[in-house]
C-alpha cells in the first residue's frame, strides 16, 4: 500500500463478498484499487464469507499478525455482525469502538441494479466509515452493581403471584398496596369464570403464604411518591399512611360492634356499609384493622374512643404517624389492576336510577358470601327474581364510555347468568349482545353450556339503542332496543368493561412511562415483550397494560418473574451503556437546557459549580441533550459532531 495517511493508526479494511451476495454487483477489484490509491487504509483484505468460521479465523489472524488498531469491515448490516467482530477484536486487545462496519450489502448490493453505481456507492459508504474511524476513541465497557430485590406496585393476584414466584429464589420482594390489604379485585367475587372456581378459597392459602413468607414485605395503605434510578438500581420512595391500629391486631372484630359510625363500603362498590374502624374481608393481609380518620369520632370531634376500651390487645393508637420509606430495588412491577367501567354517560341504561339494575361487578359483590349482603341480592326482600336480562358491552364500544372492547366482559356476562342460576335455580336469563368475544375454548364452552341450560341470547345489532325503563306502575323492568321485541324482567345486569385504574396517570408521570390511547401502560413490545414497559427494568402484569382475566394475570406475573430472575442475578454486575454523553465542564454555562431534554432524568445541576452534570450510569446515549445544548459543551460518545461530520463528508466525497 502507498504511504499511509492514518497517522498513528494502522487501519485494515476487510471486504466481505458474502459468498456472492455482494461481489456479484460490487466490483471488489475496483474497490481494492481505489482503497490503495486513496491510501487511508494500510491493508485491504478480501474474504469470501467473513462471518463463517474460516472468515473469523482469517479476521483474527490479520489483525493479530499485522498489528492493526483500526478496523473497517465492508460487509452486511452492523446490526447483524458488528458485535461478532467487536468481540473478536476485544479478544485481540483491540477496543470495540475501533471496529466499524460499512453496510455494503443491505444498503448497497441488494438495492442497486447497476454494477458501476453499486461500486461507487460502496466506495462512498466505505469512505464514510474510514473517515469516521480516524476520530473514534477507545470506549470502556462499564458494569455496575445491581440490586436483585424487586418492588411490586399493587397487591392483586398479578402482584402477589409475581412476589411469590420471585421470593422462592431468596430475594426480597416488596408489595406496595394502595388499599389497606392485598388481594385486589379477585377478592370481590365469589367465582372465577369459566372454571367457576371459588375465588376466596383460591386466594386464602395464597394470602397466608404471603403473610408467612419472610422474603415478602407488604406495605399496605401506602403509595409511591417518587422513583429514581434505572434497571438494577431503582430508589423508590413510599408513603405509608397511618392505620391507627398496631400490627398486633388480629382482626377479632370486637371494635366493629361498638364503633358508632358507618359509611358506604367502597370495596363493595358502595353497596354495603362498613364502620369507621374496619377490614376489607376476613383473613386479610395485613390482618390489622384500619381507622378511617375522616369519619372516626375520635378525630372529627374527639367524642369517642369506644374501640380503645373493647380492644383485647390494646392495638388502637391514635398517635400513629405517616411513615416515609425508601427502598432500593433492581426492578419494578406495575400490577395496579383496573377500574370497572362507569355508566355516568349512559342515563338510558337506568343504572343507579332504577332499582334492580346492577353492573356485573355489583352483582358479583352482592352474590358473594364475602359480600355486603352475604350472598343475596336483597337481604330484606325475600322476593325471588323470576327473570334477568344481562346487557353486554354496557358503556363500552361507545365514545361516551370505553371506546374499546375489553375482551373479558362477555365471559363476565355469561358468568352473571351462571351465578344467578346458582342462587335462584328457576330464574330465566336473557343475554342481550352484539359481538360475543371469548378468548379461549373454555370460555366459549362456558357460553355454550349457559345456552344449553336455557339462557336466551338475543342479538341486538345496535347496543346503543338499548333502553332500560320502569315506571312507578310497572312491576318489571322493560328492556327495549333495535331488532328485538322488548322484554320485561325482574333484574337487569350491565356488563361493563375494564378501565385503566385511577392512579395510572400519576404513576406514569412518576416513572416517565407512556400510556396508550386507552390509558393503559404501553408494553415494551406488543409481541416480544408484552409485560415489559418502555423503561428497562419496569414491568407490567395484570390489567396494567390491557384488560386480562385472573388466569392471564397469573401467567403474566410468572413471565415477569422469570424475566427479572434471568436478568438480575444476585452478585452479578449489570452492563451499562457504553455510548454515553458527557459535559465539558469548562464550556458548560449552566443554562440547564439539557435537563428537560433528557428523557432518562440523567442530568442534574450542580449549584456549587454552576454547571450541569450527566450521571453516566443513567445515560442511555440517545444524544438528545447534545443537540439541545446551546454552547456545544455536551459530547455524545461515539456520535460526536466531529464523527458525524466526518462520516457525512466521507459519503459526499468518497
Amino acid at each position: 500500500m502507498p504511504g499511509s495517511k492514518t497517522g498513528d493508526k494502522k487501519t485494515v479494511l476487510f471486504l466481505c463478498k458474502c459468498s456472492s451476495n455482494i461481489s456479484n454487483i460490487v466490483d471488489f477489484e475496483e474497490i481494492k484499487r481505489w482503497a490503495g490509491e486513496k491510501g487511508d487504509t494500510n491493508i485491504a483484505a478480501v474474504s469470501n464469507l467473513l462471518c463463517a468460521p474460516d472468515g473469523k479465523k482469517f479476521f483474527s489472524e490479520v489483525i493479530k499478525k499485522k498489528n492493526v488498531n483500526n478496523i473497517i469491515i465492508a460487509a452486511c448490516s452492523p446490526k447483524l455482525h458488528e458485535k461478532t467482530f467487536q468481540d473478536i477484536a476485544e479478544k485481540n486487545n483491540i477496543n470495540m469502538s475501533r471496529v466499524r462496519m460499512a453496510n455494503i450489502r443491505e444498503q448497497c448490493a441488494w438495492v442497486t441494479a447497476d454494477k458501476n453505481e453499486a461500486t461507487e456507492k460502496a466506495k462512498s459508504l466505505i469512505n464514510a466509515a474510514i473517515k469516521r474511524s480516524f476520530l473514534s476513541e477507545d470506549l470502556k465497557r462499564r458494569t455496575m452493581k445491581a440490586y436483585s430485590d424487586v418492588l411490586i406496585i399493587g397487591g392483586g393476584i398479578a402482584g402477589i403471584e409475581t412476589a411469590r414466584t420471585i421470593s422462592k429464589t431468596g430475594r426480597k420482594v416488596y408489595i406496595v398496596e394502595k388499599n389497606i390489604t392485598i388481594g385486589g379485585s379477585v377478592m370481590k367475587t365469589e367465582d372465577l369464570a369459566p372454571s367457576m372456581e371459588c375465588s376466596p378459597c383460591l386466594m386464602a392459602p395464597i394470602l397466608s403464604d404471603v403473610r408467612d413468607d419472610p422474603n415478602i414485605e407488604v406495605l399496605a395503605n401506602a403509595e409511591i411518591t417518587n422513583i429514581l434510578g434505572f434497571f438494577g438500581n431503582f430508589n423508590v420512595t413510599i408513603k405509608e399512611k397511618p392505620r391507627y391500629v398496631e400490627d398486633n391486631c388480629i382482626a377479632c372484630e370486637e371494635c366493629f360492634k361498638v364503633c358508632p359510625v358507618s359509611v358506604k363500603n367502597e370495596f363493595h362498590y358502595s353497596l354495603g356499609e362498613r364502620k369507621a374502624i374496619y377490614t376489607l374481608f376476613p383473613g386479610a393481609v395485613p390482618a390489622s384493622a384500619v381507622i378511617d380518620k375522616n369519619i372516626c369520632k375520635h378525630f372529627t370531634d374527639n367524642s369517642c374512643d369506644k374501640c380503645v376500651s373493647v380492644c383485647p390487645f390494646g392495638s388502637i393508637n391514635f398517635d400513629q404517624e405517616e411513615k416515609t420509606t425508601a427502598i432500593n430495588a433492581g426492578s419494578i412491577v406495575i400490577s395496579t389492576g383496573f377500574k370497572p367501567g362507569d355508566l355516568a354517560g349512559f342515563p338510558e341504561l337506568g343504572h343507579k336510577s332504577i332499582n334492580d339494575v346492577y353492573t356485573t361487578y355489583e352483582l358479583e359483590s352482592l352474590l358473594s358470601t364475602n359480600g355486603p349482603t352475604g350472598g343475596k341480592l336483597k337481604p330484606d326482600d325475600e322476593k325471588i327474581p323470576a327473570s334477568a336480562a344481562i346487557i353486554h358491552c354496557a358503556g363500552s364500544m361507545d365514545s361516551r364510555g370505553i371506546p374499546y372492547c375489553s375482551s373479558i366482559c362477555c365471559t363476565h356476562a355469561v358468568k352473571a347468568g351462571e351465578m344467578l342460576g346458582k342462587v335462584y335455580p328457576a330464574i330465566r336469563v336473557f343475554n342481550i349482545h352484539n359481538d360475543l368475544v371469548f378468548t379461549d375454548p373454555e370460555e366459549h364452552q362456558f357460553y355454550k353450556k349457559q345456552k344449553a341450560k336455557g339462557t336466551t341470547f338475543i342479538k341486538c345489532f345496535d347496543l346503543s339503542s338499548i333502553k332500560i325503563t320502569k315506571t312507578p306502575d310497572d312491576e318489571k323492568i322493560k328492556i327495549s332496543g333495535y331488532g328485538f321485541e322488548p322484554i320485561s324482567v325482574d333484574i337487569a345486569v350491565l356488563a361493563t368493561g375494564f378501565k385503566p385504574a385511577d392512579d395510572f396517570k400519576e404513576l406514569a408521570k412518576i416513572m416517565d412511562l407512556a400510556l396508550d390511547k386507552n390509558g393503559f401502560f404501553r408494553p415494551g413490545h406488543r409481541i416480544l415483550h408484552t409485560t415489559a414497559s418502555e423503561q428497562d427494568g419496569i414491568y407490567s402484569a395484570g390489567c396494567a397494560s390491557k384488560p386480562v382475566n385472573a388466569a392471564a394475570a397469573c401467567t403474566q406475573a410468572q413471565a415477569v418473574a422469570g424475566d427479572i430472575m434471568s436478568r438480575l442475578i444476585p452478585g452479578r454486575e449489570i452492563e451499562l451503556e457504553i455510548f454515553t454523553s458527557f459535559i465539558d465542564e469548562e464550556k458548560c454555562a449552566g443554562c440547564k437546557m439539557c435537563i428537560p431534554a433528557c428523557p432518562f432524568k440523567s442530568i442534574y445541576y450542580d449549584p456549587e459549580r454552576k454547571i450541569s452534570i450527566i450521571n453516566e450510569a443513567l445515560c442511555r446515549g440517545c444524544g438528545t441533550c447534545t443537540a439541545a445544548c446551546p454552547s456545544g459543551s455536551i459530547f455524545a460518545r461515539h456520535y460526536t459532531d466531529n464523527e458525524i461530520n466526518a462520516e457525512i463528508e466521507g459519503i459526499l466525497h468518497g
Partner: protein
Amino acid sequence: MCSGRVDLEFVLRAFSKGMDGVLTVGCRLNECNYITHGNYDAMGMVHICKRLLKYIGVDPQRLKIEFMSASEGILFAEVMNNFSKEIRELGPLGRGEGIDEKVLKFKLEAVRKLIPYIKLVEREKMRVPVKSEGEYQKFFSGSEMDRLFDELILDKLAISQIMLLLREKPLPSGEIAEVLGLNPAEISKYLNDSSRQGLVRYDESLKCYALT
C-alpha cells in the same frame, strides 16, 4: 443514537456547504427505540429551521423530515427518490431561489451564529405539550409561533446579519438596508438598538456604522 440528536447546526451546516436539500429521517412517531421520543424534537427543529430558511429566502421545501421503521426499505427508497426529484425540480441551492451565492452564504452564516440563542428560545418558548404530528403542525404554523418568531428571533437575525456585514467593513445604513433587503427604517432601529448596547458605533468621519 436518536433522531433527537440531529442538531440544527447539522442542517444549516449542510446548506452552508452548498447541499441542495436535507432530509432528516427518524423512527416512526410514538414507536420510540428509547423512551426519548426525540423524533418529536427533530420535528420541532425542522419546523423552526424551515422558518429560518424561508426568512433568508431559501425554499423551505429543501428541508424535510420523514418517519419510518428500519424495515421499511421500499418506503425509504420511495421517499429518497421523491425527495431528490423534488430537489432537482427546485434547482441548485440559491440559483433556484434567485439569490446570489455569496449573499446566501452570508445569510446562512448569520443564522448559524444564532443557533445557541435559537436553541434556548426553542427549549423555553416553543415546546408543544401534546406529542402528536397534528399538534406540532398546528403550533408551528399557528399565529402564536408567528408572534414568537417575530418577537424573539427576527430582530436577532437582523442584528446578527448586520454584525457580520460590519465585520467586513464599516457601511452606511442605506447600504446595509440594501444588502440585507430590509427597509431603512428597520435598519435604523436595529442600528440604534445595537449602538445603545455598545455593539456598533457611528463613525462621523466615514459617515458609516462600524463595529465597536
